[in-house]
């Protein structure tokens, strides 16, 4: 039992979260390339020691790689022009947790916010949120681009936030 706990602790200690600086807007491509390279190595019977890659939702120009050690990651992205370099030091798991454990989209929307409708007959129009129904996952909107007051209910996946009320 103690040995098992010790082994688990040791495994955890070896985990490192490396922050890579990328060209802004190319984070997804860098992550996909690393994923492909790791898959190729795994197919060839090698273990590169990379367990996951995070493309943060709110930070542009950075990705996080969870790996056994820094050197494997550095070797893997060597010569890749979209990678600008590595940020010195490693991140802590708590910091990563904040990045990946986010609230559902509907929790972030509140009455007064300005949103854009991204599908359906009102696609492309801007609207003000008047009510949020979290149970039915529905948003009540007041269309801003209409000549007369127009209210409608849309599913949350049909809108995109433009401006928060604050």
């Amino acid at each position, binding site marked *: 039992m103690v040995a098992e706990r010790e082994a688990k602790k040791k*495994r*955890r200690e070896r*985990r490192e979260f490396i922050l890579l600086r990328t060209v802004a807007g190319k984070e*997804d491509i860098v*992550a*996909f390339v*690393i*994923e492909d390279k*790791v*898959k190729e190595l*795994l197919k060839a019977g090698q273990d590169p020691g*990379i*367990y*996951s*890659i*995070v*493309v*943060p*939702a*709110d930070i542009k120009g950075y990705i996080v790689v*969870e790996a056994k050690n820094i050197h494997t990651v550095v070797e893997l992205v060597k010569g890749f022009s979209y990678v600008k370099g590595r940020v010195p030091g490693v991140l802590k*798991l708590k910091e*990563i*947790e904040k*990045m*990946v*454990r*986010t*609230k*559902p*989209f509907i929790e972030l929307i509140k009455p007064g916010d300005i949103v854009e409708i*991204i*599908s359906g007959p009102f696609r492309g129009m801007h609207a003000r949120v008047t009510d949020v129904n979290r149970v039915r996952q529905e948003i009540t909107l007041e269309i801003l681009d209409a000549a007369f007051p127009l209210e409608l209910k849309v599913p949350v*996946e049909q*809108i*995109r936030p433009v401006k928060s009320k604050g």
Partner: protein
Amino acid sequence: MSSRRSRSKKVTYKACTRCRYIVPSDVKQCPVCGSTTFTDNWKGMVIVIDPEKSEIAKIIEAKVPGRYAIRV
């Protein structure tokens, strides 16, 4: 001709609203949870390579390797 070529190159992705698994937009059913509801409105991504060894996979409760959206 050129427009056809550019269209074939671009692959768009959508995320399952239930388990956040990311799939190409032509997929009808989520291969992880079986849900048929997807959204194009997602932000951030976690690529899980080894769900058993990854600490991040445990946080997001991912048991299958693949791509997961952070915010749906």
